[in-house]
């Protein structure tokens, strides 16, 4: 009974904002276009958060630790992307195949860089502390978060840095029902969807992917079956980092600004998404990302961006208290 109530209670609470503003729009504008825009933006932003959230959820699923530095890995992804595409010579005048392949290579580079970075963090921050009290790896992760932020600070300075609008982010691609879909929206979804699908396929159908899932559920049993737990954990971090790297590139092209501090905020938003969807659950991370994206957009647009963090965190607290397993997770089992 309680499970039922808490799941639908959560859904209800999530619906408050969109419904309230939907009604408001109907009264003021006579249509739902503005809400539609908010939701559309929410989905495309949310796609970015989904990618970052996947990193959190995979890592938590396998070692039950929050990778505090993950948001900053995402930030490095943006930084690496910008640096690389500038080095490649991509500018506002680039178009066509040159632009496409240039960005494709940038994507690969960003993914590799962030994947490697994440694995490095695992080796230095998590592996040596596997048997220490949970406090220890959390602290080292925070330490890494700070180090990465400082790297970002030194790299491109303390203020937000504009980057070339390579894909003409705000240009309308098409309009559906009065809602403008921009290039940025298309980019976000077009890159995220295949990546998520690829990851899902990897996790369900390949041997390594199954090893990951087995280790997440029963590390001892997996070990007995011959799974190399250490490698599997590193693989998980690698995949999470890859997703974050991709998210970093999309973010840079979408927002056309990068900032050393973007990872901290993104990290908390993405973590909220992961928890909301159900920690450990990839579909949950995606769903959570989209939902949080929408909440964030509605809040930015209606209440004011300066209040959004408070609203997102309030949701986080609510979820943690009333439904820690999120929308798609199961009630935590008590030990028998």
């Amino acid at each position, binding site marked *: 009974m309680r499970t039922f109530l808490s799941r639908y209670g959560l859904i209800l609470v999530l619906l408050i904002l969109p419904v309230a503003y939907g009604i408001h729009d109907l009264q003021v504008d006579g249509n739902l276009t503005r809400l539609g825009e908010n939701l559309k933006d929410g989905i495309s932003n949310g796609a970015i958060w989904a990618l970052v959230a996947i990193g959190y959820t995979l890592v938590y699923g396998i070692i039950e630790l929050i990778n505090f530095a993950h948001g900053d890995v995402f930030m490095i992804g943006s930084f690496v992307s910008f640096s690389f595409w500038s080095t490649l010579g991509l500018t506002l005048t680039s178009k066509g195949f040159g632009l496409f392949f240039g960005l494709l290579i940038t994507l690969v580079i960003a993914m590799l860089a962030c994947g490697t970075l994440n694995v490095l963090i695992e080796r230095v921050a998590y592996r040596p502390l596997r048997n220490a009290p949970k406090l220890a790896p*959390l602290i080292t992760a925070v330490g890494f978060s700070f180090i990465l932020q400082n790297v970002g600070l030194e790299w491109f300075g303390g203020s937000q840095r504009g980057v070339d609008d390579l894909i003409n982010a705000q240009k309308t691609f098409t309009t559906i029902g009065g809602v403008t879909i921009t290039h940025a929206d298309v980019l976000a979804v077009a890159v995220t969807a295949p990546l998520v699908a690829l990851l899902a396929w990897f996790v369900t159908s390949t041997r390594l992917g199954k090893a990951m899932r087995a280790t997440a559920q029963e590390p001892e049993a997996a070990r007995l079956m011959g799974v190399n737990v250490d490698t599997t954990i590193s693989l998980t971090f690698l995949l999470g980092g890859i997703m974050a790297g991709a998210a970093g590139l999309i973010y840079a092209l979408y927002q056309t600004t990068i900032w050393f501090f973007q990872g901290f905020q993104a990290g908390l938003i993405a973590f909220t998404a992961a928890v909301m969807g159900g920690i450990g659950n990839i579909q949950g991370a995606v769903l959570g990302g989209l939902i949080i994206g929408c909440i964030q957009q509605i809040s930015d647009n209606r209440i004011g961006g300066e209040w959004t963090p*408070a609203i997102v965190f309030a949701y986080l*607290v609510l979820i943690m208290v009333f439904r820690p397993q999120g929308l798609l997770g199961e009630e935590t089992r008590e030990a028998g």
Partner: protein
Amino acid sequence: MSAIAAGLRDSRERFNQLPRRTIWAIGAVVLVLLILLPFAYQPASGFIDDCVTALAYVVMALGLNIVVGFAGLLDLGYVAFYAIGAYVIGWYGSGFFASINGSKGFHFVAESASHLPGIHINFLFILVIAALFAALAGTVIGLPTLRLRGDYIAIVTLAFGEITRVFAVNGTDIHPFGKNYPLTLGRQGITPIDPIDLPGLKAFDPLNLRPWYWFGLALVLLVLFVNFRLRDSRLGRAWIALREDEVAAASMGVPLVKTKLMAYATGAAFGGMAGAFLASYQNTVNADQFEFSFSIFVLAMVILGGLGSIWGVVLGAVALSFINSRLIPDVLNGVPHKIGLNFDLTELSFGIFGFLLVIMMVLKPEGLLPERRRQIEFEEGVGADEALYEARA
């Protein structure tokens, strides 16, 4: 690092073996030296300034030590209590509520501000009010965390810390006190703040740091006293039992909810008091002071010193405070230029902290002056972190 720690451990062992009277005598001598310290410096000396700040941070670190060190509750949002303490004096010890009482102001044992508009309550009462408000906030923040596991507690407390910051920054736009008064003055800051004005004495002034130093020292002594008393009491044992094994603790009759909330509230109270003190000392309450990195700064002090170790935490707080205010800006700042690099080391301060945290946890997680117990915990991985059963509060 290991050599320093080993050296400290040996000195500590030898120190502990001295007869009690000798220890007390040494303590008394040290205390007298500390009291006389300001006379070795100018009244407005930069060194004494750093000392005052360090004293305030010691109080905060001791507060956080109760939550994280004794009770084992991973609080990453301690800055919220600093903020609350600061805003208590911002509201009730300044000209913030300027129109109160027909602009004549409301005064309570506040001689020096007796003609100023606004609410001006004597600092000693402010300390109590700040402690109470913070303790209340600690209870509120603690409530949602009661059934959560370690890292989830970290995230929820972090979230509360951030929510507090958002309200501090954007408080200019909301008016809970009625039309004329916003919640806070955001980044611009509430200033000036009443200086400490003890009954019978002249109000402290910003040019003579000595009274501030002595007040801070007295505050530290008070907080130390409370800490030692609590550690060796029924409540202190309950906290440590809670940290070690929540399920066993509950089965032995320790009420989990009450004990956890008491840890949050007590730890928060210290943060609030230190917050009010710092606000008065710095003469401003500015939303920029309440960032997440501050929570980590205080946590780093506790970890560096040794979780749960009272003297260790004092050492950690003093060390980090001075590294932050002296070592990096003054001493090390010239180093990069000397080796041909072109950057300002202060910019790297939080990266350096990050590095320090990583090194600490990998090399010596039990801290510089570990509580003897903790050494066992970290060395042997002893102490149940995971509740085998979902302990019901």
